[in-house]
């Protein structure tokens, strides 16, 4: 599969060119355009993660129950996929041991060799790491496409680092994190306007996004009229 990112960084999409028989699994609704030689299958199943139950787990963790699987019938078929919000798309290649933990709404698509699992972080971290934050563990080998609200910046965590929950895109599983307060006291945490933050420790790569979708939602939401 060949990957090209177009319209960076303000409204990026990924243009994927596949060979005959190659498959890519995408978030439902991500397809912008494609050539006609694709077989499209809506499934609850990604490689290795079992069927209906995996779909239920994804739904519980806030993600879509279904996934769309695109298989090219001939060489050179192409597919353009993109996220909903304005922002960037990056291509990350998983090689063997390099497992990546992706913030749920940042996952855009992954190749057939990548196994995705939403169940591993435990309900506590799923609920308390912030509004609609859930985590997808991506392991195996192959292509992974991630999207962000705003631009993506990379942080090489050497020892420890702090990120506001709405700004995490993905991180290597050599990093551990705990969800907690910002600063010394709970009072300051509540007053700081940051809410809970993620404290990372260990060594590894961390992708952050410059803007927070919940932050933008809170800005715009109060101005909207009730349906």
């Amino acid at each position, binding site marked *: 599969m060949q990957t090209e990112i177009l319209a960076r960084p303000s409204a990026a999409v990924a243009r994927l060119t596949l060979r005959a028989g190659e498959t890519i699994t995408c978030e439902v609704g991500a397809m912008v355009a494609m050539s006609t030689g694709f077989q499209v299958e809506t499934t609850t199943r990604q490689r290795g993660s079992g069927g209906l139950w995996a779909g239920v787990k994804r739904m519980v963790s806030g993600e879509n129950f279904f996934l769309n699987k695109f298989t090219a019938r001939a060489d050179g078929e192409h597919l353009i996929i993109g996220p909903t919000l304005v922002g960037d798309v990056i291509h990350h290649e998983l090689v063997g041991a390099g497992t990546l933990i992706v913030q749920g709404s940042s996952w855009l698509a992954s190749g057939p060799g990548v196994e995705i699992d939403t169940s591993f972080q435990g309900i506590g971290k799923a609920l308390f790491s912030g509004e609609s934050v859930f985590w997808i563990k991506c392991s195996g080998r192959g292509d992974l496409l991630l999207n962000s609200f705003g*631009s993506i910046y990379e942080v090489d965590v050497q020892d420890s*680092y702090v990120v*506001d929950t709405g*700004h995490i895109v993905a991180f290597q599983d050599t990093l551990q994190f705990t969800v907690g307060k910002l600063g010394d006291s709970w009072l300051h945490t509540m007053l700081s*306007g*940051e809410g809970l933050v993620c404290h990372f420790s260990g060594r590894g790569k961390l992708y952050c996004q*410059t803007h*927070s979708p919940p932050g933008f939602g809170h800005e715009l939401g109060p*101005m909207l009229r009730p349906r």
Partner: protein
Amino acid sequence: MEYEIRNRPAFANLLLRLTRGERVLAESGAMASMSSSIQVRSRFSGGFFMALLRKLFGGESLFMNELSTDSGGELVLTQPTPGDMECMELKGQALFLQAGAFIACDTSVSLSLGWAGIRSWLAREGLFRLKVSGTGRVWFGGYGGILTKEIQSEYVVDSSHLVAYEPSISLKVGLSGGVATSLFSGEGLVMRLRGPGRVYLQSRSIDALAAWVNSHIY
């Protein structure tokens, strides 16, 4: 303290590198990520009374965060909407900031709340306005690109596009034209600015975005 405004203009964010003992004052909620060596303390912005006024009449948050470090570190500050940021170095002069525009400033900069007047309130821009003065840098941002204009005499601005202006500028709320024009042009009330001085504008309006979305909710 070194700074860099990255990813301009669409997704501007402020990278600050603090060395030992340095501090910066930031808008509540602006921190995106930071080194663990940075401490955060929230405090009333400019004292309790002013913070309360700012909250009630300025549409701003009650608290601000003071970020400091004993050993050095870096932090990234951002704003809720996509858009650009500007830095202004104050050397004794002052600047008025509209609600939501303030991002951060050196701790040597003083923040106060100025009376903006009933006219400003009528234009839904708040009864008070944030005044930054003293010496030091102040960072502010807007939704969309930021345009700068030096005005000599009179200049007309749609109120939701105003970000910041120098105190030498006086504001008047007015109609964009005659009564009919004002009603049907979609411009409604506008700000009439009188210079001389510099004004900062944002190229998009969050109010207009909300109005557009509202018109599509059914």
